[in-house]
């Protein structure tokens, strides 16, 4: 059993920026565990931009951005172990890992969960039809573009209009595929309206009020059935890209004793990014599916500072005050942090504002403790509100 000051699970933007910051703060033994063959997280797979604006004020492509994050962490003195999968989280910062040498236990005085988020696959969307090859999420599409040098289709249908959906569109167009359609169940695109112009400019029909009900083809996709405002319609295509519908990569968490937020499906945290077991912290998309890489990078840095405070014994004890955000409808998907611990002027909270997300469009009041905020937002957009001052009695 080996002991580290901090074990970071996941070498994406959040985990790597935390590692770099912890080293800069003088923390001695910082270990990053990454299950893939190389560090870098999702951006390593994404042969598109923009990445790097918040971090280095320049527009970068994913792989270069990921390389820079990895280099900075290594240069700062963090150890990164790839091909090392964390398979269980135990109380007090003890983690079980699997590596090419089998299973062993590592212990961290603090452990940072930075396992990211993934998209909802076809199966979980209960889309009917057959199960041919050529059906995938955006990240897999990006993997093909980045590592295989080619896409496994020419005329896919893209399902969804989140930001990531447009990255799928651009990657298709720059890699020899021309999507036969982009479809959205709502009346408007989920991502900002300007993006909605993109497919039209590129000659790809964008269809609203449309869902995919079935996929056809035996070994390869041959067609899909769409449910459109004009009724059911079959269109020819040779692939389907299911984009977005992000959810935290939370299997580890859900199988651990740590508290999970029913809305975000990520861990429940306090304003210091601390979980229900104070040895554990979290940052990045495991908290909030989904934010940009830059946002996650920044969160990693900030949580690194509270971890450093925790290691020095300077963090106020874990509180038990639950913050609830209430709207007139059930439009709130999640609000974090979920717990308020006592504040201390010497330690800045990693989460100094509430982050909220709606599952549907909402215009009305959101009440948190004794404060009320007027909110108008579309679903899946970042909403930031001040942390409530209230100290409601804990449960």
């Amino acid at each position: 059993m080996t002991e580290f000051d901090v074990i970071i699970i996941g070498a994406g933007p959040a985990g790597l920026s935390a590692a770099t910051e912890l080293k800069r703060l003088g923390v001695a033994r910082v270990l990053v565990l990454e299950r893939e063959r190389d560090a870098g997280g999702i951006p390593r797979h994404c042969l598109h931009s923009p990445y790097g604006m918040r971090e280095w004020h320049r527009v970068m492509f994913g792989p270069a951005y990921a390389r820079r994050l990895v280099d900075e962490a290594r240069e700062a003195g963090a150890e990164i172990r790839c091909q090392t999968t964390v398979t269980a989280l135990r109380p007090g910062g003890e983690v079980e890992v699997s590596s090419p040498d089998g299973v062993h236990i590592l212990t961290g005085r603090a452990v940072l969960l930075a396992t990211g988020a993934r998209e909802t696959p076809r199966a979980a969307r209960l889309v009917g039809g057959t199960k041919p090859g050529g059906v995938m999420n955006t990240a897999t599409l990006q993997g093909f573009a980045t590592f295989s040098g080619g896409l496994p289709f020419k005329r896919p249908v893209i399902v969804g209009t989140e930001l990531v959906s447009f990255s799928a569109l651009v990657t298709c167009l720059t890699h020899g595929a021309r999507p036969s359609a982009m479809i959205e169940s709502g009346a408007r695109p989920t991502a900002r309206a300007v993006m909605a112009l993109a497919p039209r400019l590129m000659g790809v029909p964008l269809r609203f009020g449309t869902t995919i009900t079935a996929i056809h083809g035996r070994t390869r996709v041959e067609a899909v059935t769409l449910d459109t405002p004009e009724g059911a319609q079959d269109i020819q295509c040779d692939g389907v890209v299911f984009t977005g519908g992000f959810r935290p990569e939370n299997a580890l968490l859900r199988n651990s004793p740590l508290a999970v937020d029913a809305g975000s499906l990520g861990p429940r945290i306090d304003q210091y990014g601390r979980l229900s077991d104070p040895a554990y912290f979290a940052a990045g998309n495991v908290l909030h599916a989904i934010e940009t890489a830059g946002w996650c990078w920044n969160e990693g840095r900030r949580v690194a500072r509270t971890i450093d405070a925790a290691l020095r014994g300077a963090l106020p004890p874990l509180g038990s005050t639950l913050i609830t955000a209430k709207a007139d409808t059930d439009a709130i998907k999640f609000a974090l942090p979920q717990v308020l611990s006592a504040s201390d002027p010497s330690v800045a909270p990693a989460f100094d504002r509430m982050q909220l997300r709606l599952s549907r469009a909402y215009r009305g009041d959101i009440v948190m403790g004794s404060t009320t905020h007027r909110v108008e937002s579309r679903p899946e957009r970042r909403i930031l509100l001040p942390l409530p001052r209230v100290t409601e009695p804990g449960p």
Partner: protein
Amino acid sequence: MTQTYDVAIIGAGVVGCAIARRLTLDGARVVVLEKGADILDGASKANSAILHTGFDAPEGSVELACIQEGHREYETLRAGMNLPLDRCGALVLAWTKEQEARLPALIAHARANGVDDVVPLGRAEVLALEPNLNSTLRAGFRVPGESLVDPWSAPHGYLLHALLNGADLERSCEVQGGTFDGDRWTLATSKGPVAARHVVNAAGLYGDRIDQMLLGEAHFTIRPRKGQFVVYDKRAARLARHILLPVPTDKTKGIVVCRTIWGNLLVGPTAEDQDDRETAALDAPTLKMLDAKGAEILPALADEEVTTIYAGLRPASEFKDYQLRTHEGRNMITVGGIRSTGLSAALGLAAHVGRTLAGEYQALPDPTIPRMAMLAEDQTRDWQLPGNDGVLCHCEKVTFREARAALTGPLAPQSFAGFKRRTRATMGRCQGFYCGQAVQDLLDSEGPGHD
């Protein structure tokens, strides 16, 4: 055509695989002819993976005899071949008064079938065994012998057992006709003629067509019966220990909730008659119905994530029982209409075929026994062992060593689907989000490529 085999088996479903094993061990020179790019591409590609006891099989049926013989043989051979078995038992559950009234008859039927360890249970006893069940249930009984297996490693193991001991396998080899000269068959296949003294028709969903083609008539007609399933993430498996069965109807065993050997939880199958023998299409309304049905039985399932959806086709016929027939004077045996229990009965069916041809060959003195990759969740897996080369598929924790091992040997996969069945790569909760491209890369560089 260079040689005359003793036996040509048409079809590498679970039944054909088991027969190939039996006859090879009995000493016959066997060839298996499969039209699919890989084996297990017909009815055997999708089932509930339950090793049945026969407690509810028709009394005195061939099906019952084969299930029971097959179940027994599985128990004896599985340790040697490293095949998993989860003896979790089943609970037959009554939710309505009418169903409850049928329980005594079902228990009596089980006992008449020789399954004498069934235990009647009151509502409280059932709930004590399965506290996550919807508490509106009324009563039930327990069938301790009903078990879970790996629906793919078993047939792969059977066929590999045959191949390691001299049998041949031809894939992408469709039997298109044949003639019998009174002594031997010459089968016309998409890969050229194949000669054999005996032919075994184990063509599953095409069993009647093969009889028609080779004998000029078929005494049964296949009526494909589709079953759709919804599979939940591994966390859901904690919600049920037993196989949860409803009171069956005449047509179907009904919708089951049970764990899988890989540690997931499944809900299904439906029973939908169709003419199409090729395509088991999923449809959203039915999947939603299954999802709702699952949550009705286990309310906590409503919060669980769906990992995958699938459908299979049962080779049902107009008859309730299996259609086993030896065509005297034609050196042909038909093993047809193995509709909903073939995984359990395969070894029993094989023993039956073996007895039919008994005395013709000399049993192999010291056959090589294959050891299969162990993928069961409750057993030690490769990711826990040194030298595993790292994990390829993270959700199912499939290692590079396992993946590469699956790509070698006489039964190496010929399709992406075949690779998935041997390793489970990409079959977990992310469905390839993380590893889909890496898996394809491995197959492109070291395997058969995409199907």
